[in-house]
Structures are given as structure tokens and as C-alpha cells.
């Protein structure tokens, strides 16, 4: 199938003006939403995903609990206006169930569930906008939401998607590129460099696979720096606010109420 738009032109630029190994703009928002224990909205270019985490909390059905660990439940909801054309998806759409199951099994070994036996951790993923790279955006958002909820994890999980156009590897594909090229999503744990998720669904030659695989691993490390920066900045502001609250009030011993308005939104 010939594409009307060039994926990679001779000057080395892609259809949206990026270079070959360039990731899309990242926007991480860790401000609290409602009563969720942890929340994160991540935007990769035009793909926007919101993840809220509740837990660890009492399990709804005792039969679903494990006696020595917490159970992680992931529910995913793709909003009908997230794609170009409005499309309502059934709650139990196979693809959505599969993505939810993938996220669940990705985080089960990373979250220290043995600290919370017989409880459950709920992760709700809302896809607000889709422009390619859905799985890796969901995984990054889930990592940050779990960190923001204070649930102990052994490491970050940073995911990125990669593809290959004839022989040149590309990173962080948009919908246009995903439709045309073989692509895969790789999630790494940056501290050890080990890979925790690989998802390839299109035909790809083994040698090309090795190239993109390594490249995606390195990109995950780069992404880790950005995520760390966002978390650190929020943590610093939180600690700063707590210290402000603990200083003796200026008007004497009466004024204990403190409304601290924080600006959490980080944009790069």
C-alpha cells in the first residue's frame, strides 16, 4: 500500500517534523484528581492518557483475594472521542481487555504486593486522545500514578514504541506511521536495564528486530530521566508545602488553617 505522506524524507525528517530518533513532546501532570490515591496524566505528542490509582484497599470480593499478596485490577476505558472518528467501544472489547491484562501483568512483579496481603489495588486507565503509542503511554502513566500514590515499587517502568522504515529505525510512532510500518513496544526497568515488556504484532525480520529492540531500550532510559524529573519536582513542592505548614503562624497561635495552592503542572 503506497502512502500519500512520506514517512521519512531524504532530509531525515518525518511527517510531523521530527527526526529519526526523536521522541514526541512529553507533558506530565501529577496533580491530584478527585479522591484518587494517585493520579497522572501523560501526553506524548497527541496521545493523552489519564491513570488513577486507588489502593491498597479492602477487596470487594473476599474470594478474589490472595492470602499473601495484594491483587492488582486494571480497568481500561477508551473514550469514544479519542480517535479521529467517534467510535463507541464495548466495555469488554477484546483489544481493551488485552491491553488491561498486559498492564496488569507488567506491574505485578514491580509493585511490592507482598506488603499488602488480602487487599486490592485498582488502576483505572482512561484514554483521552489517541495518536499512536497507546500501550507505552498507558504504561508510563501507570508508573507515575503508582509512584504518586505512594505504592512501593522496585523500579520505574519506562516504555517506548519503535518501528522500522525499510532499514531505518524510528522511535515513538504516530498513528500514521503505525499503520504503515512494523512496530513494537518495549518497556524497560531503567535501574537494571532489563526488559519487562515486549509487544510486537506486525511482521518483522529477526535482524531488524534486534536493532529496534536495543534502540528502544536506550530510549527508555532517556524517558526515565524525564519521568524522574517530574516526580522529583512534585515531591520537592510537596515537601516545601509541608514545611510551610509546619512553621509557626504569623498571627499568633490561632491561625492554623493553611490553604496552600500549588502549581503542579509541568510542561517542557
Amino acid at each position, binding site marked *: 500500500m503506497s502512502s500519500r505522506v512520506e514517512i521519512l524524507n531524504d532530509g531525515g525528517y518525518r511527517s510531523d517534523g521530527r527526526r529519526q530518533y526523536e521522541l514526541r513532546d512529553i507533558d506530565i501532570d501529577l496533580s491530584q484528581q478527585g479522591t484518587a490515591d494517585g493520579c497522572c496524566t501523560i501526553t506524548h505528542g497527541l496521545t493523552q492518557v489519564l491513570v488513577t490509582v486507588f489502593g491498597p484497599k479492602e477487596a470487594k470480593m473476599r474470594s478474589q483475594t490472595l492470602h499473601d499478596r495484594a491483587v492488582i485490577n486494571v480497568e481500561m476505558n477508551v473514550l469514544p472521542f479519542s480517535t479521529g472518528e467517534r467510535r463507541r467501544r464495548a466495555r469488554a472489547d*477484546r483489544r481493551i481487555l488485552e491491553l488491561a491484562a498486559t498492564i496488569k501483568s507488567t506491574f505485578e512483579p514491580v509493585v511490592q504486593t507482598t506488603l499488602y496481603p488480602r487487599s486490592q489495588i485498582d488502576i483505572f486507565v482512561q484514554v483521552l486522545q489517541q495518536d499512536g503509542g497507546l500501550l507505552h503511554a498507558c504504561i508510563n502513566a501507570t508508573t507515575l500514578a503508582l509512584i504518586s500514590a505512594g505504592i512501593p515499587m522496585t523500579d520505574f517502568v519506562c516504555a517506548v514504541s519503535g518501528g522500522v522504515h525499510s532499514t531505518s529505525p524510528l522511535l515513538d510512532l504516530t498513528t500514521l506511521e503505525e499503520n504503515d510500518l512494523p512496530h513494537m513496544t518495549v518497556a524497560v526497568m531503567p535501574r537494571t536495564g532489563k526488559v519487562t515488556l515486549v509487544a510486537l504484532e506486525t511482521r518483522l525480520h529477526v535482524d531488524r528486530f534486534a536493532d529496534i529492540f536495543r534502540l528502544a531500550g536506550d530510549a527508555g532510559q532517556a524517558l526515565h530521566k524525564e519521568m524522574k524529573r517530574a516526580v522529583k519536582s512534585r515531591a520537592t513542592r510537596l515537601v516545601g508545602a509541608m514545611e510551610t505548614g509546619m512553621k509557626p503562624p504569623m498571627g499568633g497561635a490561632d491561625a492554623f488553617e493553611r490553604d496552600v495552592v500549588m502549581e503542579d503542572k509541568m510542561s517542557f
Partner: protein
Amino acid sequence: MHKRAPAFCSAARPGASGFCTRCLFRRARMPRPASPSIPEKEFLYSSLKQSLRLDGRNLLEMRAPTLTFGPELGWVECALGKTRVIAQVDAKMVKPPPERPLEGIISIHSELSPMASSEYDSGRPSDEEVTITRMLDKVLRRSDVVDKESLCVLAGQRVWHLRLTIHCLADAGNMLDCACLAGVVALRHFRRPEVEVVGDEVTIHHPSERAPVPLSMHHTPYCLTFAYFPETSILPVLDPSHLEETLSAGLLSIALNAQRELCVVQKAGGVPLAPDEILRIVGIAVDKAKELDKTVEERLKEDWAGRTVEVR
């Protein structure tokens, strides 16, 4: 996101795996199956550390697949040890959807009933069922196994609709590989009736009048599943048995064909692996796929030689 959305996508059909679209609420799930006892768990890990498997196989040895062909073309039963799956292909002529007038339609219907194992519920599909159904879909349909354009008979009017049905009979570990193998062999085994197009008229010839035609396939993918365990000193095993699957810390499924092309690589969570380890496993999978391909070819040839197709 679907690259293409054929009208009869297995995801859109209600009841594809017993799920009723009217009852969208979650049905009460069956209680979790009892996990293995402590001695079984410890024994499995300690013997795997010594590279011994419970059924006497090597770590990277697959159970020899037994393929039994039925009397009609396109019916095959695949057995990997005690794991058994039946796959069947049939074809009928339909009118294509308006957005794709030049392609045939392939739909995969997989049945994972409690007959295979008491872990499979007939209510809302469990995580394992969803994984197997989606993997089958990715390996057999989305990776373009069958050339859809060859299924077009009369553009915009008549195309072939192939229906691949997969019944899982018994689960003794690694149902996914068995189901993929059964599906792909059934597609190779199947012969569709010959058609003749004169102007706007389409005549379907009965198999006794004209020899049926094999499907035109781009490639033959095989799925190989490796299980790895929480202790890093234990190497991954190929084709896990039921106990190995239950006690594994993660599964890595690789679907590829004999021409060194990867169709699906799925490692969803589980113990993280070093990138070199994954590439090493991919290398092993390439060799195993070649062996499997040879076995399947021999078996198909054997069966075809034993059949007599009468042509008037």
C-alpha cells in the same frame, strides 16, 4: 487499534467466547483454582535448577506434535502431549463490505470452554482466555497468513468468507502453541472449491467435478512459548507443562515463520529479562521454527498422499 476491520472481526461478534453483550455487568467469577502445594513448588524449582524437567524432556525440547487429519479437508486435531486442540476451516461465499470490495474475509472463532480446564469460565472471559484469543487473532489473522485478495471472486459482489474454528479440548499446558499450530495446519490442509466466473455469473464447482484449490498463503507462522521462573539461575523452558505454567513467573511467546520473520513477540510482564537474553531466545525460536516447519510439511505430504481425490 485495528489496521483493518473486517466486517466479521472475532472481537465484534457477541458470544465469540461465551460472553453475552446484554449482560455487561461482571458475573461472579469461579473461585481461583488452588495453587500447587509447597513441596511441589520447591521440587519444581530445585529440579529445574538441575536442568531436569518433570516429564523427562530437555529444557528446550518441545513435545512432539501429533497431527491427525479428519476425513474432510481442513479438519485437523493437534496434540502436544496431553494438550489437544481441534481446528476446522470452512468457506462460503458472501457479499463483501462496501469499504473493502476486493478482499476476502477471515474470521476466527475460538472456543475455550470449561471442557479444556476447570479454570476457564463460560461467563466473562478470564485473563488467560483473552490472551489466548488475542494471540490467535494476531498470529493467524493480523499477520496476513492467507492472501485476502486471492479470496475475491467478483469484485464488490462475491468474496470467500473463511471461518476458522478452534476448539480447545484439553489443557495440559501451553494451549496457545497447540491452538496456533492446529489453526495454521488446518489452513494449509484446507482446499476451497474451484469457481468459474463468466461475466457476472459465478459458478461454484463441486469438489467431485473439479479438484478443490488450496488457499494462497503468504507464510506459515508457528508459535513458541517459553516460560521463565522467579529465580534467575533457572533458564527458560520451551513448551511448559501445566505445572510449569502455573509456577512460572512469566511467559514469552514468539510467533515466527521459517523465513526468519517474526510475526508476534509477546512478553507481558513477568520477571524482567536482559535484552541479550531475549535476543538469545529469539535465536533459539528461529531454529525450532525451522524444525517444526519440516515436521508439518512431512505430515501434510503424508496425509495428502493417502487421499484420493476423484476427478471426473
